[in-house]
């Protein structure tokens, strides 16, 4: 489903990404964990070409993008139609209602008739539990509601994979739970996802695969049980010792 081969991104002093090799199979949920500034978000943005990478290759489904090749706009749009992106700050369109936010891209990008796009928006808002708020503007919604609308907006494009950049980082614990519930349901439904997260509980219990980042490199990958209970690397142990609260 997703494969990165020798992915690298040069930074000003040291590489922001360094030889990142990952494979995510269909239906997998990959959690990217690690200290701040370790390159998790950068990797996520590279996967969608929001940040261009300087070496290596990305394959998502049947779309492959090489750092060496000239960026092709049509190819880029095909890539982005396969990939949904959830921002930490939601980035909903403030001049549109929740339903319009969701229906905009299906209508204009996929070419769905307006009525069909609106029907799809209604279905998806219902799925994230926000059918009643369809007419509200982002400013009238809570942070958790906004993030759920953003998830519905990404799902409306029927992406093969969802990329989520710290989707709950801006939310208080209560709202965090409602968003995580939504993501859990998506995972249970077989949605392929890559999530950058500081929610260790989520990473441990929902993800099928965990990758630990440090200084632009993957320190360790494995299934959550292995990584959380039997970390192979010293760097992983130090990181987990600081972030994992008892009981998680």
């Amino acid at each position: 489903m997703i494969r990165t081969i020798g992915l690298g991104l040069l930074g000003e002093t040291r590489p922001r990404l360094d030889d990142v090799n990952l494979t995510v199979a269909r239906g997998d949920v990959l959690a990217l964990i690690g200290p701040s500034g370790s390159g998790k978000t950068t990797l996520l943005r590279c996967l969608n070409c929001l940040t261009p990478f300087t070496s290596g290759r990305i394959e998502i489904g049947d779309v492959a993008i090489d750092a060496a090749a000239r960026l092709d706009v049509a190819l880029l749009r095909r890539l982005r139609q396969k990939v949904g992106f959830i921002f930490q700050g939601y980035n909903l369109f403030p001049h549109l209602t929740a339903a319009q936010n969701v229906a905009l891209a299906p209508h204009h990008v996929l070419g769905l008739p307006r009525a069909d796009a609106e029907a799809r928006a209604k279905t998806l808002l219902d799925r994230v539990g926000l059918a009643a708020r369809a007419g509200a503007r982002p400013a009238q919604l809570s942070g958790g509601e906004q993030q759920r609308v953003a998830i519905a907006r990404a799902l409306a494009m029927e992406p093969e994979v969802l990329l989520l950049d710290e989707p709950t980082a801006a939310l208080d614990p209560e709202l965090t739970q409602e968003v995580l519930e939504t993501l859990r349901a998506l995972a249970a439904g077989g949605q392929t996802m890559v999530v950058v997260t500081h929610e260790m509980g989520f990473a441990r219990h929902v993800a099928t695969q965990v990758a630990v980042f440090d200084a632009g490199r993957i320190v360790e990958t494995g299934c959550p049980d292995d990584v959380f209970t039997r970390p192979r690397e010293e760097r992983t142990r130090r990181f987990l010792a600081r972030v994992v609260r008892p009981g998680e």
Partner: protein
Amino acid sequence: MNGLLSLAAALLLPGPRGSPVSDDGALAAVKARGVLRYGGDTEGGAPYCLQDPDDPSHVVGFEVEIADRIGRELGVRAEFVQCDWKNLVPTLERGEIDLAWNGLELDAELARRVRPTRPYYVFAETIAVRPDDAKRATLASLDGGRVGTLANTLAHKVLRARPAIDTILYDDDVAPYADLMRGRLDAVVLDNVIANRHLAEGIRIADGDLLRGTYVGAVRRGDESLAVAIDGALEKLIASGELRAILARWKLDDARQALLDAPEDPRARGLLGDGGGGGGVPKLTAAHVLLFLRGAALTVFLSVASFLLAMALGVALCLAKVYGPAPLRFAASSYIEIYRGTPILLQLYVLYFGIAPIIQLPALVAAIVGLAMNYAAYEAEVYRAGLIAVPAGQAEAAKALGFTAAQALRLVVGPQAFRVALPPMANDFIALLKDTSIVSVITVVELTKQYSITAHDLGSWLVPGALCAGLYFAMSYPLTRLARHLERRFGTG
């Protein structure tokens, strides 16, 4: 008998025409000061009064020479004071000068407002046409044609009395003759002094004077003693032939000047009383109000048309500057800097007169395009500020959803930028509404120009001024409210 009557009248009535021995102190004040301050306008002032080409700090001209001679007769020094010609009489009334002395045409209106001096020049209103035009030689022959003149002159009044003539008003006397030769006008009606000045441009002056009149000085009513002294000095200069010698030096002497010797000759004095203004005091009438409303309607039309155009051009400039490739970016930035950095007056002159040899825009088109091109520069910056104000995450979210760059701009970033730009746009529109008054320099008579014409006609600035201001307010206040409403609605969005 006659003299006895006027003496009796002078004794009984506190009128302006006092006795020759009137003791108003005006002459004494000038003599005590040792200076006679006379007002004229050196802008387009040849041959009346102009800056000496050899020494621009010094004024010369036939009026300057006559004034110097009058000063000598009065035993004082004549001192030139630069005034705006249109405001000579108000300047006199405010006491900044003792004598308005710059081609003032004697008519009933002037005689009512000031104490006119004895005439010092007999002029004639003439018709200037293109050399190949033999048809237009009388006022009636001008019907249906476009005829240029200066606002608030006798010629303007003569033309206005014939509604069949399409009268085009200019602010200076150079442009009408240029427009005549380019074919924008069919004729120019102005006095012979001005017309003679432009003979070199190839115009032909039709035979026969349309109307004759005289130039007089203007003294404040009540400064009778000064007026009498000036009249005496003029009489002496005329009798000695010195006045005509001065005129001859400036190539202004002609057979018409023989009338100066006979000030009581109706052809020389007061013959303009019926020239146009008619008798009696003109009042602000419903007809004036109607003219004002028409001016206001034109102001609204100009504002709306030029603002719509400015918005379209502004969007194009803004997009070129923000998203365009380097050459386009440079071109847009240059346009914006040039149009913001130069006066709109200059831009209008260039658009209407400057490029006329290449393309002749009708005045109204030039006005709309000129205002639009100027305001587009400001709008472009307002829209750019709007675009910058939209968080980068919006464009990113649009990109991530697969929108093309154009779709992202049209559907996501553009609408948000527009909301940010709305309040300053409303502000600009109000400013434009008032800036439209500037297009009178290219002969468009909008509200402010109408006000200026009417105020001169009536010799009253206050009531027409209040009416004009009221109309502007009636137009801009709803817009101010709208701007405030938009700000409340979108300002903090």
